[in-house]
């Protein structure tokens, strides 16, 4: 390990150090403010370290990790996402009883795992990163002890993640048998395209990752976990966790020649189209907004997979842009839900939002913007994202998949508009009691939402800087 290796790893190390520091800090004195401050600081330091790291990228650090522009970009995304979640969690946790401090350790560890994932170039680091992420998530999902649904969701996630991890490990073993290597770059060289052992292994790895991505047919857990987990944690699962796994998938695509194997291509096509339709149809007449967002995320991963299937720099760029837009949008949507949560329960049902536009015009405006972005309407990041994804699909002549995206979007529109129209409906006359419970949004929370909305619109009307950044990051992928 040279100094440069340390520089390259410094973002990871910073997060890890932050986790340690928080742990030590808590054992000395429980202080919510200090813990959160430490966490935020750690994340900021890590983010800052991305720049020196970028100056020496790309660099392979040990056989396990590679720090290239691509990894750094995704690390940045993970850090920004985590930071947002941290900030959203502040108030949420303040309302929810004792000992919120360990929450931040888990969050930092989850971020650490995610960052490991996006930088891994070896099955070993892949598995490590994934498990660090998963284990942290079990705790996070069930963190609010008074909430039965949360605990149930945590257990479900635990059991199912274990099942899928088993598939993943077995798949790795099979691939190793077939190719004799655990390093991504060597696997590609050693794989014979028709080797059933290799294909079976790849398929099992797909199962493992498909679970994390919550795509059809490994999606069944999603709504229950989304619903049960605290809203900020849900935001984390929806964005950081999935984003990291997807980044890994993109990285794998090259060495594995996924897109050149007709059968693997078919697998992904089926998964993509299935996710688009199942996700959108399942969301149609849901009454719970968190479940709606869960189903909608299934569909969105389907759209992302279409961009992924397009392959090449174009596909990767499109997918990455889509993911970035999706990060902003989803964080914003869950941000609204988090910030509206009352002391007693979260405001997760559609009827909780009735007439919101006339009581809280700004909040409703933000939520509307987020939902429109999810639907892919102009002026929002989601529009450019969807445009880019479809563009990539068309560029590779994936007509069938792309038409599925079109139809899926039309179906999706129905439930997004359903939420919007409820928000703009006339408020109920006799709902004074419930209104009283809803608190005002704090200044900090409002700032986060404002920033997210600003980002959403900026990405929607002036996307070229980000596109430029992503293109550079993706072209440098090792």
């Amino acid at each position, binding site marked *: 390990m040279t100094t440069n290796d340390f520089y390259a790893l410094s973002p990871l190390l910073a997060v890890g150090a932050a986790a340690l520091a928080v742990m030590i800090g808590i054992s000395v004195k429980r202080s919510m403010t200090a813990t959160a401050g430490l966490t935020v600081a750690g994340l900021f330091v890590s983010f800052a370290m991305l720049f020196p790291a970028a100056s020496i990228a790309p660099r392979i650090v040990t056989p396990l990790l590679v720090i290239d522009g691509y990894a750094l970009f995704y690390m940045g995304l993970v850090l920004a996402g985590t930071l947002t979640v941290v900030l959203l969690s502040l108030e949420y946790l303040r309302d929810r009883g004792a000992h919120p401090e360990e929450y931040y350790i888990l969050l930092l560890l989850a971020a650490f795992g995610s960052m490991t994932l996006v930088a891994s170039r070896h099955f070993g680091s892949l598995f490590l990163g994934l498990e660090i992420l998963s284990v942290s998530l079990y705790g996070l999902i069930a963190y609010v002890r008074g909430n039965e649904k949360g605990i149930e969701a945590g257990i479900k996630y635990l059991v199912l993640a274990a099942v899928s991890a088993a598939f993943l490990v077995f798949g790795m073993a099979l691939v190793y048998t077939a190719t004799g290597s655990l390093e991504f770059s060597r696997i590609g060289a050693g794989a014979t395209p028709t080797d059933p052992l290799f294909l079976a292994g790849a398929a099992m790895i797909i199962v493992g990752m498909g679970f994390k991505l919550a795509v059809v047919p490994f999606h069944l857990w999603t709504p229950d976990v989304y619903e049960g987990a605290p809203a900020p944690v849900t935001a984390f699962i929806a964005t950081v966790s999935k984003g990291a796994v997807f980044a890994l998938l993109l990285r794998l695509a090259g060495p594995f020649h996924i897109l050149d194997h007709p059968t693997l291509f078919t697998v992904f096509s089926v998964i993509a189209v299935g996710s688009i339709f199942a996700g959108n149809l399942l969301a149609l007449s849901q009454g719970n907004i968190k479940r709606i967002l869960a189903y909608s995320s299934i569909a969105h991963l389907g759209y992302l997979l279409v961009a992924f299937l397009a392959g090449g720099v174009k596909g990767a760029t499109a997918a990455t842009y889509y993911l970035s837009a999706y990060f902003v949008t989803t964080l914003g949507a869950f941000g609204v839900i988090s910030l509206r949560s009352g002391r007693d329960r979260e405001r997760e049902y559609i009827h909780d939002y009735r007439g919101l536009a006339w009581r809280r015009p700004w909040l409703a405006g933000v939520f509307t913007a987020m939902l429109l972005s999810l639907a892919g309407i102009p002026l929002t990041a989601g529009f450019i994202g969807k*445009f880019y994804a479809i563009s990539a699909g068309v560029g590779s002549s994936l007509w069938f998949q792309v038409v599925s*995206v*079109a139809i899926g979007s039309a179906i999706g529109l129905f439930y997004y508009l359903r939420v919007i129209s409820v928000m703009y409906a006339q408020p109920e006359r006799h709902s004074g009691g419930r209104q009283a419970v809803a608190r005002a949004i704090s200044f900090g929370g409002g700032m986060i939402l404002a920033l997210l909305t600003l980002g959403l619109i900026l990405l929607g009307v002036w996307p*070229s800087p980000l596109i430029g950044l992503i293109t550079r990051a993706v072209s440098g992928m090792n």
Partner: protein
Amino acid sequence: MTVEWLILIPLIGGVLAWIGGRRSSLLPRLISVASLGAGLAMTASLWNASPPVAGRTAGQAWIAEFNTSWIPQLGIGFHLGLDGLSLLLVLLTFFLGIVGVLCSWNEIKERTGFFHLNLMLVLTGIVGVFLSLDLFLFYFFWELMLVPMYFLISIWGHEKRAYASVKFFIFTQLSGILMLLGILGLYFIHGRSTGIYTFDYTQLLGTRLTPGQSLWLMLGFAAAFAVKLPAVPFHSWLPDAHSEAPTAGSLILAGLLLKTGAYGFIRFLVPLFPDAVESVRLIGMVLSAAGILYGAALAFSQEDLKRLIAYTSISHMGFVMLGIFAWNELSLQGAVIQMVCHGFSTGALFVLAGILQARLHTREMSAMGGLWAVTPRMAGMGLFFGLASLGLPGLGNFIGEFLVLLGSYRVSGLVTAAAATGLIASALYSLRLMQRVFHGPKRDDLTMADIAVRETTILAVMAAVIVVIGLYPGPVLETSKPAVEGLIQKGNPSLTPPGRGPGAVKPGGESSGEMLR
């Protein structure tokens, strides 16, 4: 001051109106009218300042242009252009926008700021559609106008507003994405063959396509335009949206939004895919004729006044589509006139329907009747616009329909004859409307005030425009002439049949010397 301000003015006006809405409910109205008036004045001054027709050759018909880079990585530019065709439609947009604000003066009492924001945003999107010369930008504006329109319907609409607004949104959105697929297909094919990846309309124009590519891409575009126009059988969103929207919404839907579909056909579909259009032209014409008759038949059977008017729009826009598919100067100029006049006549009918609904609290025609005795001024206006909509000679709509049919006869006599029976059908529904609403025995319990000065003025101005276009359409035709000629050249030469039969060669008496080229 250039063409981009035509987009910025309503946008800024809308935001100001929204902000102004916090202070009073009057302020948004005034701001909206003022900014739309400014837009109208600016467009008119561009019209005035545009070089005379003779000075512009066909194909270089832009009166004003604006081009700057937007997303360079993808070859997306912010390219706007104004020619005679878009100029007329932009004028129409601002004018009907003002009418929309004026006619909702008393109708919209709640959240006026937000209402006017949405109204102005719709208009921004529509103006953008009429000006865009970059396909991405076009798609951007195309989608942009949906959301505020959705809000207009779903917040200020009538009983079934939720259903109607979602239906409207989904129809247009799905078809819009199909168009996006077409745009992207064209983009990649052009990029691969030339190495230049661009969405610029002027560069994409001559893209070489195989017949199969051309057909499929054309169908993608056609989906969006056919839904918006709307062409039968993609029309079923329209009656719901039109009848549930507030007056200004119906006015803008019928008067402007439908025109964007027709504009897309004229500006993009045929010039980009001349060969494919040529191969499906007869189908297009048959669909248009079917739309004319089917819309009229449905209009005839409606009991809801606004629904009736909505279905007449389908019928009228069938003429526009027929003119487009016939693709010659006569039929295209006819389509342009028909678009403009339909905006006025149907818009005015919706204004009337809105006035009636505001006073009677119903749109059911069974609750009306004999209103001539109660509100003679309104009845007279109703009669006038009813007659305009049945294509009475001397009024603008006649010029449109006549030119369209005259032009389409060159392509297919049979289809034209079938479409012409739409003239009978339009008489059926228009007169039925008159009978059910204004004629017949007066109900004793029916009392209401006649239209006031504001309403009378709006309607009278609209009527005057229709009369002027009916008797002296020259200025309109001359404005669109260079644009139309340029577009015709972009179409497939075999699309435009020779003007006349055997007698074409020898000019007749002195009276017609000039009319034969």
